[in-house]
């Protein structure tokens, strides 16, 4: 089995402002993300040979991309893999280029969540009479928090304080990004005292629902410098999908997810990473809820199992810390338009590795990791990029 490492490169990326974009439709989001990417790559729309579009609930078919962009008769594929959808669009684009079939392709993810009149995602299970139990996303992820606190002997107060620090960190970082949904700092007290959404998760433990889009132009690595001097190379892409295991697998601990471990193992192996905590320069992970970020620290090998709290307390993952995580604010503060998120995270790692992040810039950034986690939770994607070959 070959590795994707250094076979393909990203030569251009775009990302809309994220937020409650009442005045923008899906076409606006798609056009803004795609044309920023075209411009960044220095290509013409007609250079695109194939495209992958990711959205969970805002469009169908490849047509949802080709119509707003007026793409002419090229292959366009719609992909969907829950919260990993944006990553999935990029992953399919990368593998298609790596196959040698195409030279210049577009991966774009978008979501328009704010046209529903609802706060929070609508979670249902289709037509099934009992699977359609009206559970919510916060409720589903709260299972993790309840069990994590129990397993590691944290009182509700200790547990809530730990995850609250993650919200404070991510809001701080988001306040520094001009395109973030929330550009406002929050205090520990605000987070801890916020209304409970799904115990033990409060309002500030939950990411918002957001409108937005992000896009990438992918080419063979060997062609990348024809377009720009600072292309970003794909070092590894891991994807892991499980059945709805947590709900009925015996002895499942609910404090760690095999899909996270397996997706990161695949990506680390391809990228040749042995010690992710030391080797990764910056990471954007799936903080749909603060508790999710906490268990991701452990699943991705950044913190020892059961001891992520120590790293949180030590400030390990702040902008100034040993391994900055969510340098753009994460889902928590930058926002979570589902289909766009994997590409938005990649937009941040791409810009960090190009040294274009202004006050958020992480020094000597070499390797960037982005991670999405979908379902409750069943699918995980880890994408690692680097700014040099080898």
């Amino acid at each position, binding site marked *: 089995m070959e590795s994707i490492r250094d076979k393909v490169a990203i030569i251009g990326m775009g990302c809309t402002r994220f937020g409650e974009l009442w005045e923008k439709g899906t076409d606006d989001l798609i056009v803004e993300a795609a044309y920023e990417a075209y411009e960044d790559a220095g290509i013409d729309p007609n250079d695109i040979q194939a495209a992958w579009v990711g959205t969970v609930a805002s469009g169908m078919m490849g047509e949802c991309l080709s119509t707003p962009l007026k793409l002419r008769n090229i292959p366009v594929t719609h992909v969907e893999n829950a919260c990993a959808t944006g990553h999935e669009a990029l992953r399919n684009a990368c593998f298609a280029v790596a196959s040698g079939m195409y030279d210049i392709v577009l991966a774009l993810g978008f979501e328009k969540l704010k046209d529903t009149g609802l706060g929070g995602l609508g979670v249902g299970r*289709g*037509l*099934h*009479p009992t699977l359609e139990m009206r559970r919510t996303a916060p409720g589903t992820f709260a*299972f993790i928090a309840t069990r994590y606190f129990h397993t590691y002997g944290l009182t509700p107060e200790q547990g809530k304080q730990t995850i609250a620090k993650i919200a404070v960190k991510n809001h701080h970082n988001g306040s520094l990004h001009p395109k973030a949904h929330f550009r406002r700092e929050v205090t520990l007290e605000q987070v801890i005292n916020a209304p409970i959404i799904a115990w033990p998760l409060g309002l500030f433990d939950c990411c918002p629902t957001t409108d937005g889009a992000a896009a990438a132009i992918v080419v063979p690595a060997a062609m990348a410098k024809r377009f720009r001097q600072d292309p970003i190379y794909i070092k590894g892409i891991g994807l892991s999908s499980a059945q*709805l295991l947590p709900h009925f697998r015996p002895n499942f601990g609910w404090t760690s997810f095999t899909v996270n471990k397996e997706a990161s193992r695949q990506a680390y192996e391809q990228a040749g990473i042995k010690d992710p905590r030391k080797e990764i320069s910056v990471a954007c992970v799936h903080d749909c809820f603060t508790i999710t970020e906490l268990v991701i620290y452990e699943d991705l090998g950044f913190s020892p199992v059961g001891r992520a709290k120590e790293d949180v307390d030590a400030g390990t993952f702040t902008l100034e810390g040993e391994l900055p995580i969510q340098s753009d604010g994460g889902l928590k503060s930058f926002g979570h338009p589902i289909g766009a998120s994997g590409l938005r995270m990649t937009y941040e790692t791409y810009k960090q590795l190009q040294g274009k992040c202004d006050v958020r810039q992480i020094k000597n950034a070499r390797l960037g990791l982005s991670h999405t986690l979908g379902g409750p939770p069943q699918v995980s994607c880890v994408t690692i990029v680097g700014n040099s070959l080898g």
Partner: protein
Amino acid sequence: MVGITSYGAYIPLHRLSREEFFRAWGGLALPGERAVANFDEDSVTMATEAAIDCMKGIDPKTVDGLFFATTTSPYREKQCSTIISVALDLGREIRTADFTGSLRAGTIAIASAMDAINAGAAKSIMITAADLRLGAPAGDFEQALGDGGAALLLGEKGVIATIEGSYSISDDFSGVWRSDADTFVRTWEDRMVLDEGYSAVLPEAISGLMKKYNLAPGDFAKVVYDAPTDIRRHPRVAGGLKFDAAQLQDSLFMTVGNTGAALAMMMLVAALEEAKPGDRILFASYGNGADAFVLQVTPEIEKVRDRRGIKNHLASKRVLANYETYVRWRGLITLEAARRPDRSPTSIAGLWRDRRIILGLWGVKCKVCGTPQYAQGAGLGGSTPLRVCVNCQAKDQFEDYRFTDKKAEIFTFTQDNLADTVDPPATITVVDFEGGGRAVFDMTDRDPAEVKVGMPVEMTFRKLYFDRGVHNYFWKTRPLRC
């Protein structure tokens, strides 16, 4: 001789003091408290719970009929005894019937079951009755009615009380009624209704029975017959027939309220709980006529003392804080809708395909690795039945495995304030079953403050929701009841 072979009962956990009706509306507070079904309970779920209690230790395969008696069937066109029979895991080759329309639907069902068994058409028939009648807000019925159910198993083997004889009267009278367009119980001028109805027809049936079998009031250890909502009339019937006050079975008015078609059977269960071998019981019920029976308790009664019945269910209660909760649970006012997406239509095909899994809580046990598992997959069509083992991936190597009677323990949970529920927060539990198996269920009858990891729970049959004409029943977890 045909008789009762087992009994069971169900009273909802929640009670409401009648003082609360007075607080809300003024007027007159009746004494005592009434039982209030939770928002996810109805006549079908309560009748199922009573039947489960009655079935304790009894092989479902030995039951060849199920009669459901109620005046509050959730469906006008669709049988509900079939729903209950799947929940109880009775077979397909059984006789099912819904007895409705009359407040003595329970005793009509008993008489029909007795006749069927006497005729040799069946060996064992379950009669399960429950009612959830509504009185209009601010009226007397709202205070006097209560919710509950009772079940009796009739047969010829292991009889705990023989049915020595019966006597029935049919009497057309709209004393208390609901038309097909009515939500709330109607009645006529009360003295006329009682004088010409209950207080005339019930004594006529009881004295007719005693005359037919040449029995006198002193021949009975207990006399058990239902009470009207005007509770004063209950002892007057007994007095008029020369029964002693000590012979009269308590009407449950002070503790439960008038449970309609289930009341007489619930009172009989309470009487049987206290009965001694050899006791003779007079059992009767009123409603568009009256049915009366002579019962004789046998020594077998000692074998069914482990039922939850009336006594244990009465002792297990939580008093509702206020009348507003009752109004909310019964859907009597329109509340602001939760800001959640519209529900998808319920798939009738899905309900049918997975009926044993949904209504009977049937899972599977892997024959290769022995792991019990309940199918709760993703996907629009559901992933049931399970085909591939979650643990060892063996394909189609399963035996059926039932979870309804398994105790479980909470592994993790949440209290979800965002979820759309009549009784927020939605308490959602992930549970591990005794003997293996894990699944996710809504939790009911819980105090959110008492829910914790490791808490023991049991399964209870409830309604998940009603949508576009479909009552969708499933199982939930609840704290161990009693």
